[in-house]
């Protein structure tokens, strides 16, 4: 599972900064001897990066005195987690709802918007695009205080829909940019042919262009999911009902249960439940994850 996105042009990728070391063929004894310090060093680094994840996973099924898992190995900490306040299923459902709504809205809005910016000329086109990108320039915290007031006014205060709308707005700069360049990289002849054949512009988008921009859609969807699933600040401010908390909030509150005693085992179980979908999605879609950064950085 390597990052194909970065290295799929082998000649380009092999920018050689260490000619002497790379010149030593790794098959010979001398080559191996030259390579060994590098392997040890980089391997140690990899261990440092992976250790916290492995340790947390192992400890989440390990015993802690006075908790759900008193001795031996097992899922006692997960049982504690499952019965915390409204129950883990409620919080999982809340998080899943916010994340899915955010992903769907982000995909819908940025597909339509990206199509508009890439294929149509209309007054205010550049101004709207720049305004969308300007969301990146304004700190998250600066906007959340007035958003709290605004959402309360329009009846979306303390609501998961409100949280999803806010998270979607914060995704728009990246996703609109990404979809715009995805549409722009599709040859115009493709949708023009569809239009000449009598398709409406929407049919051209739906039947001809969408399949062509699928990689862009996956990247946008992945980023929206990771952002919404993991977000802590927006629900912290916008939600004040314990039954409506998302998973990160619930796990963060769960740390301190009764009499200020910290349930470390249940916290670790919570971290595993939070991290698992992200890591699985990341490993499956790594290429799309990397692509998002490449396109962003190239133009940025």
């Amino acid at each position, binding site marked *: 599972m*390597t*990052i194909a996105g*970065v*290295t799929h042009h082998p000649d*380009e990728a*092999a*920018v050689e*900064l*260490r000619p002497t070391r790379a010149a030593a063929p790794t098959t010979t004894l001398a080559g191996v001897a030259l390579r060994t310090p590098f*392997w040890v060093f*980089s391997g140690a*680094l*990899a261990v*440092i*990066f*992976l250790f*916290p*994840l492995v*340790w*947390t996973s192992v400890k989440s099924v390990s015993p802690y005195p006075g908790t759900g898992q008193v001795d031996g190995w097992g899922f006692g900490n997960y049982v504690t987690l499952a019965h915390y306040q409204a129950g883990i299923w409620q919080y999982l459902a809340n998080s899943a709802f916010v994340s899915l709504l955010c992903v769907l809205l982000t995909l819908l809005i940025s597909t*339509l*918007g990206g199509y*508009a*910016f890439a294929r*149509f*000329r*209309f007054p205010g086109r550049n101004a*709207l695009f720049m*305004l*969308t990108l300007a969301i990146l*320039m*304004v*700190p*998250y*915290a*600066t906007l959340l205080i*007035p958003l709290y*007031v*605004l959402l309360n006014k329009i009846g979306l205060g303390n609501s998961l829909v409100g949280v999803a*709308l806010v998270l979607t*707005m914060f995704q728009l700069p990246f996703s609109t940019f990404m979809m715009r360049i995805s549409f722009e990289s599709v040859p115009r002849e493709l949708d023009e042919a569809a239009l000449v054949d009598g398709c409406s512009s929407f049919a051209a988008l739906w039947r001809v262009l969408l399949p062509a921009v699928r990689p862009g859609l996956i990247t946008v969807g992945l980023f929206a999911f*990771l952002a919404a*699933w*993991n977000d802590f600040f927006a629900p912290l*401010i916008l939600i004040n009902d314990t039954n409506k908390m998302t998973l*990160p909030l619930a796990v*963060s509150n769960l*740390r301190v249960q009764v009499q200020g005693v910290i349930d*470390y085992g249940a*916290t670790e179980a*919570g971290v595993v439940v*939070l991290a698992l979908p*992200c*890591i699985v*999605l*990341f*490993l499956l879609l790594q290429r799309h*994850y990397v692509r998002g*950064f490449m396109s962003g*950085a190239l133009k940025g």
Partner: protein
Amino acid sequence: MTLHTAAPPAAPTPTRRRRNGHRVRGWGYASPTALFVLVLFVVPLFLVFRMSASRWPLLSGDQGINFPDNFSAAVDNRFFVDSVLFTLKYTFFATILLIGLGLGLAMLVQESSRWKGLLRTSFLVPSALGLASASLLFYVLYSPLVGPLAPVMEHFGWSFLGTPNAALASTLFLIVWRYAGFYMLLMLVGLQAIPTDIYEAARMDGASRWHTFWRITVPLLRPTLALTTILCVTGSLLAFEQFYILTKGGPDNSTITVVQLIYSVAFQGQNDLGVAAALSVIVLAALVVINVVQLRAFRGSDES
């Protein structure tokens, strides 16, 4: 192509219709974006300025203009100066560490091989976690009771979050763990853009690795370094979760960031949205200034 270029002179009517069609359909497709940006970005942006100039308690709402009371109350807050200084200190260290380590890791793994692909993946995996999840993870990892280094801590009578400096260093380690892969990726993209033959030429000329790095890699990487520095400075100035969850602002209120101050003024105790909005406006203004200065600095060194 023809859709965007000047109208062919022979057929004015269909072209005009087409152009009008462009207008209508363009706005039609862009309208959801426009609606979201207007309602959830432009309106709140105006509202935060309005709030910063009004008495606005959390529960009773708008009580009328009181400019500039909120701003003086914000600056007079007993944590204002300390939180600004701490945020700047944190930003300085986080930026140096992340840019340096991001570039270092990128150079370590940039050639393609199976082993380096594995290394990249291991450096990148933490960046899939949320910052809140990562902070909770390290909260347990740093625990003097159950953390992997608990016996060592007990032996030396020392703890990860016990003193202001230890708490800052421990938080920086968490941030490096979570974000180094992300910055490595951005650096890799930048490194790929440097043409190989420049390195070839340097090697022919017998340039040392050290020379090659400072004379070729760093100057040619300047756009990437500018982008990553601005990203890192902006992100660090707005730090919240890592301190809210990991250090809770302690020990002795030594790790309160500006955004934490905004949050606590708005929702914990004071419940004063007006002062919180004033603080937000100050942060926004500071960020604009800092980013303009950074852009100038990077452009300036480009010309020299």
